[in-house]
C-alpha cells in the first residue's frame, strides 16, 4: 500500500491534518535541560556547603579543646596523614586493594544473585523455600559471618570474598525479585499476545521490565559488598593479604593513631559515595528517564 497518503474511496481528506493537529497539541513541549549554572547551584553546592560546615564544626571542637588531641585530632592532622601516604605512594595502593576486592566480590555476587533472584521470582516452590531465608540473610550483619569464614577458609582472600558474597548476594537477589514483582501484569500479557514464550519472554519482556528494580538492587548490593568488605578486612589480617582500607584502619588502631583512623573512615566513605555517584546513580537516572519515570525538571 506504499504511501500513507493513499486515500480510500470515501475518506474525509482532512483526517490526516486533524490528527497531526491533535498530536501536536497533546505531545507538549518535551524535556527541558536545566543549564549548568542551575545544576551547580541546586545539586553541587548544597552538599559542598554541608561538608564545609561539618569540617568547620570539627575544627571549632578541636579549638575548644573538648578532648585531648590524641582523642580528637584536627582536620589538619587528618590531612597530614593523607599527605604522608601520598608521599610514600601508598594512598592509592590502599584504596585500590580494597576497591578491586569490592568490585570483584560485587561482580561475583551479581553473577550468583541474578539467576538466583530470577529463580526465586519465577518459580513458586523456590520462592516458598528460600525467599524468606534471603530476606532474613539481608538483615543479618555481615560481620557475623567473619568468624565462620575464618574457620572455614583461614586468614586469606577466600574468607574475605565469602563474607562479601554472603552480604551482597541476598540483596541483589532480592532486588531482582522486587523488580520482577513490580512488573505490571499487562506487559507480560502483552508479551504473550505477541508470541513471547519461555526464554524469549524472559529476554524481551521480563528482564527489561524488571530493570529499574534490578538496578536499585544492584546499587544496594554494592553498598552491602563494600560494607561487608570493610568488616572482613578489619578482622581478616595477614601480611600476605596486602593492606586494604580495613586493614589500614586496624593498623592505625594498634598504633593509637586517631588521625589515621579518622582519615581511613573518611576514605571508606568517599569511595562508597564516589562509586554510587559516578556509576550507579547516572545509570539509574538514565534508565528511569528513558522510560519517562523521572522528569528532568524537578
Amino acid at each position, binding site marked *: 500500500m506504499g504511501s500513507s497518503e493513499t486515500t480510500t474511496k470515501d475518506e474525509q481528506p482532512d483526517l490526516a491534518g486533524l490528527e497531526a493537529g491533535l*498530536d501536536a497539541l497533546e505531545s507538549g513541549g518535551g524535556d527541558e535541560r536545566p543549564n549548568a549554572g542551575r545544576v551547580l547551584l541546586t545539586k553541587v553546592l548544597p552538599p559542598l556547603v554541608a561538608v564545609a560546615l561539618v569540617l568547620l564544626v570539627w575544627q571549632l571542637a578541636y579549638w575548644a579543646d573538648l578532648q585531648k588531641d590524641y582523642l580528637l585530632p584536627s582536620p589538619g592532622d587528618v590531612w597530614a596523614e593523607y599527605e604522608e601516604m601520598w608521599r610514600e605512594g601508598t594512598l592509592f595502593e590502599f584504596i585500590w586493594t580494597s576497591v578491586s576486592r569490592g568490585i570483584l566480590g560485587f561482580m561475583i555476587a551479581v553473577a550468583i544473585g541474578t539467576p538466583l533472584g530470577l529463580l526465586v521470582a519465577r518459580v513458586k516452590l523456590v520462592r516458598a523455600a528460600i525467599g524468606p531465608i534471603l530476606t532474613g540473610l539481608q538483615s543479618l550483619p555481615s560481620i557475623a559471618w567473619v568468624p565462620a569464614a575464618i574457620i572455614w577458609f583461614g586468614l586469606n582472600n577466600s574468607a574475605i570474598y565469602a563474607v562479601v558474597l554472603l552480604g551482597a548476594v541476598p540483596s541483589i537477589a532480592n532486588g531482582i525479585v522486587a523488580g520482577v514483582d513490580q512488573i505490571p501484569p*499487562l506487559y507480560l500479557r502483552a508479551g504473550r499476545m505477541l508470541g513471547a514464550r519461555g526464554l524469549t519472554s524472559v529476554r*524481551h519482556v521480563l528482564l527489561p521490565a524488571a530493570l529499574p528494580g534490578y538496578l536499585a538492587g544492584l546499587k544496594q548490593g554494592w553498598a552491602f559488598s563494600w560494607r561487608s568488605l570493610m568488616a572482613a578486612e578489619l578482622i581478616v589480617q595477614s601480611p600476605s593479604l596486602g593492606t586494604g582500607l580495613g586493614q589500614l584502619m586496624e593498623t592505625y588502631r594498634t598504633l593509637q593513631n586517631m588521625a589515621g583512623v579518622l582519615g581511613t573512615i573518611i576514605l571508606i566513605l568517599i569511595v562508597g559515595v564516589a562509586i554510587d555517584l559516578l556509576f550507579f546513580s547516572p545509570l539509574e537516572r538514565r534508565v528511569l528517564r528513558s522510560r519517562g519515570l523521572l522528569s528532568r525538571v524537578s
Partner: protein
Amino acid sequence: MAIALDKPEREGTTDTAGYAVRFDHVSKSFGRAGKQQLVLDDISLDVAPGEFVTLLGASGCGKSTLLNLTAGLDAASAGTISVPGGRPALMFQEHALFPWLTAGKNVELALRLRGVPKAQRRPEAERLLSLVRLQGSYDKRVHELSGGMRQRVALARALAQASQLLLMDEPFAALDAITRDVLHEELTRIWTETGVSVLFVTHNVREAVRLAQRVILLSSRPGRIAHEWRVDIEQPRRIEDAAVSALSVEITERLREEIRRHGQQ
C-alpha cells in the same frame, strides 16, 4: 492490500474456513467446584472474514473474558473457539507498549517475535507506523507520545502480528472524546484498507454503532447473547449521524432492559 498473510505454521486460513473466529457453545465459569460462578453461558457466534463486530454489554457481561478466551490467555470451561487464522492480535484499553523501547522498536519486536527476518523489520515497522500516520514518531519513547498516539502505535504493533483477527478490548475507553472520535475514523479506514476481521468490545453504545457492521448485545451475569443488530449505515459514518443516533437509542433501550432485570432479582 494487506498486511502480509504469510504465517507458515497456520493451519488453513479464514478464507477456506469461511469465518475468522467461531464460538461454538462456549461457556466459562470461575471459582472452585461447588461455588462456581458462570460468567459466559453458551455463546455461539461466527465472525466472518473481514467483518467488524462489536460486543456490547454492561459490567459483568463477560465481554473481556470472551476476548481473553479467544486470545488464548484463558481456557473455556465448555465449548470450542476456533480461530483458523492462528493466534489473534489483541489490543487492550491500556496501550501496553513497552516503555523501554521506542515506538518503532515496539512494532519491530512484534515483527521479530513473528519471525520476520531482521533486514525486513525496520522498513515493515515504518510502513505500519505510517499506516497509523505516525511516520515521524519512530524514535519517540512511549512516554513522549500522547494517549491517542500511544493507542495508534499499539494498533500498529497489533497489525504487525499479521493476524487475520484483531481483538480490541475497549481500546479507546481512556481517551478524550475528540481523540476517540478521530481514532474511530482511523480504525474504520485501516479496517477497510487491511481487510482484517475485528472483534471489538465496548460498553459505549454509540461507539459500537459507529464502528461495526454487526452489534452483539450481551446480557450480564452470566453473559449470554441477548440480541443482535446489523448496522446497515454506510461508512464512513459519524458518531453524530442521525442514523447512528437512532439505532443507538434502540440498542440503549434494550441494554437498559437487560440491566433492569438485575435490579428486580
